[in-house]
């Protein structure tokens, strides 16, 4: 098993590091956040130029064919610098869902890789994180298909030009058969998009679809496996983000406890504080190892569901524990908007929810491994 990046991957990591230092310097964070979508567009154009947006798209679809390890090199930098740019959703999840989905998918993917459009996945409904427990209907209508239903949460969906919507051609909620995946433009007739800001600066959406005309992606009714595989790839991406973010929080806290004086000594000299930092470093170590192991097993055609689910659960736990302690050890200033540590905590809390929370993935792990 390989626990180090090769030269090319290392260069990629370095370039993300430079980008992060320029664009997401912690001292300028509040200014960046205040810029809103305008800043997001500017950065997205830069990321396109650097080739990152096309990186996860397969070569046959005009991309660079980067694998999960290349994505990890990018995502950990996104986490370290806490960039709100929605790379995992638009550049990892969407292309994985659309892979080999037909000519119209290839056209859109090329635009996506060039930074011209964004595509977000509308998969979950009000009955939980399981992508199979959906009720949105896909009804044949003349030569086309029309979708009706409600998607309560679209990760990073607020600025999407297209939505990838899962819907049933047959079967009832919970059945893996009869699920299709469809493309819908954001301004489609009958589509109601609500937009929300999250506490970590990400911008999400919810959808209500009333007989919205849609284009199928891949074979209708057989999308369940495609969705699982794509979700796993997106999960690996956010695991790397989480690892980058928790390591940055640990580093910031180490710096702080060396300089902050109380009772006539740096607080890092108190053993109670030292033991907490040791536990934080253990959590970072465990999370990185799990992320690398889970990332290494993934191929375009198969994923070890139990391992990915396990990593999703455990890395999120580590990320939340590390960032909670980072805030705690900073004392009052840890809770201030001005310092970056609480931004890391907020992101970790939201990452725990992205693509399924701990309960969902524990159940998934149990189903896959206790057969």
């Amino acid at each position, binding site marked *: 098993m390989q626990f180090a990046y090769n030269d090319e991957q290392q260069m990629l990591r370095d370039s993300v590091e430079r980008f992060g230092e320029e664009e997401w310097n912690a001292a300028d964070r509040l200014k960046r956040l205040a810029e809103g979508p305008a800043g997001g567009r500017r950065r997205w154009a830069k990321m396109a130029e650097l080739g990152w947006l096309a990186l996860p798209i397969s070569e046959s679809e005009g991309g660079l064919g980067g694998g999960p390890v290349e994505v990890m090199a990018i995502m950990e930098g996104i986490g370290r610098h806490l960039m709100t740019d929605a790379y995992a959703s638009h550049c990892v999840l969407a292309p994985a869902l659309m892979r080999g989905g037909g000519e119209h998918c290839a056209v859109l993917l090329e635009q996506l890789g060039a930074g011209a459009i964004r595509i977000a996945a509308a998969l979950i409904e009000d009955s939980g*994180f399981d992508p199979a427990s959906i009720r949105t209907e896909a009804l044949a209508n003349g030569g086309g298909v029309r979708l009706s239903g409600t998607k309560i949460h679209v990760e990073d969906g607020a600025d999407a030009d297209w939505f990838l919507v899962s819907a049933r051609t047959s079967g009832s909620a919970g059945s893996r058969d009869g699920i299709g995946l469809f493309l819908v433009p954001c301004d489609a007739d009958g589509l109601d998009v609500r937009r929300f800001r999250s506490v970590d600066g990400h911008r999400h959406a919810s959808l209500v679809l009333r007989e919205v005309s849609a284009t199928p992606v891949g074979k209708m009714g057989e999308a369940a496996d495609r969705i699982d595989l794509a979700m796993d790839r997106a999960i690996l991406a956010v695991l790397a983000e989480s690892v980058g973010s928790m390591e940055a929080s640990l580093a910031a806290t180490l710096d702080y406890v060396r300089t902050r004086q*109380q009772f006539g000594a740096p607080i890092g000299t108190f053993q109670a504080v030292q033991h907490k930092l040791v536990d934080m470093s253990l959590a970072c170590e465990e999370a990185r190892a799990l992320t690398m192991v889970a990332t290494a097993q993934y191929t375009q055609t198969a994923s070890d569901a139990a391992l990915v689910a396990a990593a999703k659960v455990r890395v999120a736990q580590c990320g939340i524990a590390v960032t909670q302690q980072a805030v705690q050890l900073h004392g009052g200033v840890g809770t201030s908007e001005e310092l970056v540590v609480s931004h890391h905590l907020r992101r970790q809390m939201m990452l725990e929810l992205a693509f399924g929370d701990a309960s969902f993935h524990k159940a998934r792990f149990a189903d896959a491994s206790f057969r």
Partner: protein
Amino acid sequence: MNLALTPEDREFQREVRAFFANTIPDAWKTTVRAGLRLPPETLTAYQRCLADRGWGAPTWPTEYGGTGWTPQQLHIFWSEASAADAPSQYHQGLELIGPIIFTYGSQAQKDFYLPRIISGEDWWCQGYSEPGAGSDLAALRTRAVRDGDTYILNGHKMWTSYAHVSTRMFVLARTSSETRRQQGISLLLVDMDTPGIRVSPIRTLDEKHHTNEVFLDDVRIPAANLVGEEGMGWNYGKVLLDRERMVAAATAMFLPQTLRAVRAAAARRRTSTGPLIEQPGFRAKLAQVEIEALGVQSMVLRLMADAAAGADSGPRGSMVKLRWSELLQQAMTLWIEALGPQAQHFEPLDGGGLSDDMPLALQGALFSRVTTIYGGSSEIQRNIIARRALGL
């Protein structure tokens, strides 16, 4: 949970219950259950309402306008308040400076300040912490220099909660330099309208305005605003240690409010196999937190028994604060879990609505991180217990 009640206690309980039934609007519920403060004007109105009923200062002796309630009656009052989703009374006047004034203040200070605390006319803030003095409060550097019949204050206070709405602030400042840092500190009462005071908000992770920096620049206050003796301010803080157990007790008794919110949210949340509240995994987690909350409630009863017997509680106040703050954080985590993906919708961007409990639940979850930092951090509480209870 309740101790054995006498017929008089039962009558009192009925009275209190009836009062809360008519006083607490539904609109307050989510904010209160999330452990967040209602808007100051609302809390002031609530304080006035309690004062009108004669219950403005539940923990004070009658001679200063308090209720003179026994610990048993206090326990009943707080239990009923908790059950009715009533908010906590704002504590900085009632529980922090009020008791210091009636214990160490001059007659003039008692006559002037105490009634204004009970009526809600004054809102007090606590100017203790500074940039360099947090856990180590004795490192404070704000100075008060005597000049005739005034003191001139200069310094920088940090984390002064609700200074932006306060009419008055109690300040610890250095009046002389002694070798022991705890000496030469004085406690002063400051009118927030005095020239030279600048209040600047500190933005916090939950995006709600709680706290501030306060800059004191040649602030002249009457020398008569010194509490007790010059240089003895540190010792007056000690009266707080005794009362702290009551604050810890009251706060811990409000934990069930948050747990009710978790249950309600989990009952509403759908999953593929029925409401979340019926899922064994979630029930087990909720049961765990509720069981631990019962543990804390029992510890509170013991504190109240100490108070009734006039016994020293030792570090029991610290123990309750530690357990209460950790449990609040766990309960808030469960609340967020119950909300699921909708916890990611914090603010609508195009005029739409949010789901039930948002954004307050998430703000509460974030703000709960503060409870293990302020009022003596968890690490400091553990140090206190190690020293005072275990003799280490």
